[in-house]
């Protein structure tokens, strides 16, 4: 196929083939969707440790004396409270308060930030950020300079500790959303205690040329290669939003249950006016979790029906390897959002009963 040749590959491409990956096109990248199977990889992350290649994610560096003030105006979370060595979850919002993307913001130093964005939006996000800098900060697209591995699961710390050279703080002392520069398996790495699975774990930002060796060391130490299929079932159980599903340029953080990233009292930022208005009026729809009560799986785009009329839509749905039943998330009117509400889902013309349950579906035992 002609299109296949234009797909981008991460530095881990050969590692994936060695591990028996089935490769698919994801946002213009040739990525592993699974190795041995989604369910086994999912369970490996919940019970031991899994290793994901997420090098397709984009990194935008924002630097300069005005960088804090610039990001403070550009994003809804409070950058002034972010100290060097910490990251936070935030977003890029339109004037209407809807999502251009959801992002992680790392504060590398007082005037130096790394904004990590979704692969599918990387070019658009970079252009969005650069176009609004107005000389206040220096914005560069550094996506090509990083490979990114996510080591996730209850055994992640045990696997990483002997490979991470001693540093301060020790990796075991890193707090959730804390990070530090250091070395892993003898090469420089930004070691971040973050992830997208609902488990403890680390994300390792590496030079592309160093990444295959680190991947092999982590696999040899017991981390199971895990693909995008398991990444999706894991994040869904943990009720983490995915751009293009729970959030997009028609949804606000309040609708998506992400109001905690919006700091309305921090001062002016892009989208604040619209979000203030929505907060006063109440969001017109809410994201809920549901469990399917029949046989079948409701997936993105399937309708939520009330008295025969469409009132909402499923944003994500899957069969959950942890709970062994079909779960999903959907937008519904506030009147149908309470826990225990019965929903009717329109799955290819058939009605599938479901019930609203609390999110997240999965919370790791501590």
């Amino acid at each position, binding site marked *: *196929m002609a299109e296949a040749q234009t797909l981008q590959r991460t530095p881990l491409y050969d590692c994936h083939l060695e591990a028996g990956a089935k490769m698919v096109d994801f946002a213009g990248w040739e990525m592993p*969707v*699974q190795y041995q*199977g*989604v*369910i086994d990889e999912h369970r490996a992350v919940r019970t031991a440790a899994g290793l994901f290649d997420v090098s397709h994610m984009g990194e935008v560096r924002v630097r300069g004396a005005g960088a804090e003030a610039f990001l403070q105006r550009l994003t809804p979370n409070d950058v002034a409270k972010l100290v060097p060595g910490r990251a936070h979850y935030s977003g890029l919002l339109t004037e209407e308060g809807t999502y251009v993307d959801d992002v992680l913001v790392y504060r590398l130093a007082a005037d130096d930030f790394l904004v990590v964005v979704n692969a599918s939006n990387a070019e658009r996000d970079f252009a969005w950020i650069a176009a609004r800098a107005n000389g206040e900060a220096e914005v560069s697209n550094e996506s090509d300079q990083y490979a990114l591995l996510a080591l996730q699961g209850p055994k992640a710390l045990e696997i990483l500790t002997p490979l991470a050279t001693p540093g301060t703080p020790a990796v075991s002392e890193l707090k959730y959303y804390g990070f530090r520069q250091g070395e892993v398996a003898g090469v420089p790495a930004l070691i971040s205690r973050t992830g997208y699975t609902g488990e403890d774990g680390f994300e390792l930002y590496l030079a592309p040329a160093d990444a295959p060796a680190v991947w092999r060391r982590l696999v040899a130490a017991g981390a199971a290669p895990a693909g995008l*299929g398991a990444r999706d*079932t894991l994040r869904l159980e943990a009720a983490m939003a995915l751009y293009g599903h729970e959030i997009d340029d028609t949804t606000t953080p309040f609708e998506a249950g992400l109001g905690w990233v919006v700091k309305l009292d921090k001062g002016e930022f892009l989208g604040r006016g619209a979000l203030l208005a929505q907060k006063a009026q109440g969001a017109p729809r809410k994201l809920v979790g549901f469990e399917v009560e029949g*046989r*079948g*799986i409701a*997936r993105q785009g399937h309708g939520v029906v009330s008295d025969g009329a469409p009132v909402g839509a499923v944003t994500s749905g*899957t*069969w959950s*390897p942890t709970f062994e039943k*079909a779960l999903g998330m959907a937008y519904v009117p506030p009147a149908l959002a309470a826990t225990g509400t019965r929903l009717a889902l329109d799955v*290819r013309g058939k009605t599938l009963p479901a019930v609203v349950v609390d999110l997240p579906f999965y919370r790791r035992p501590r």
Partner: protein
Amino acid sequence: MYPSENLYSREHEWIRVEDDICVLGITEFAQAELGEVVFVELPETGQVFDTGDELGTIESVKAVAEVYTPVAGEVVEVNEAVTDDPELLNEDPHGEGWLIKLRFSSASDLKDLMNAEQYEEYVKSGEA
């Protein structure tokens, strides 16, 4: 890999003709593409289908696939083992993972199907 006594459709169903009955399932290629199957929905005994009708659906963790019948006929038996234990479809798609038996109404449907060798070529060609 593809039993020579079976006939194959472009939509990755196989059938095996036993007198006026045909056994129908999905192929090894189809199960590998779908990944781990978690639900199988099949018709009831006695339902009648035309050539190309949707017979049921197969859901994996990642995707849903419709099953079409390449031959017209009446459902005479449904494999309850596979609806109870959908993993059978992954483990043995050409054997214990069969889906239904149909009493077919016209043998002329069979001429449009591929033999095992043709099907294997079809899968390898990348057109599948």
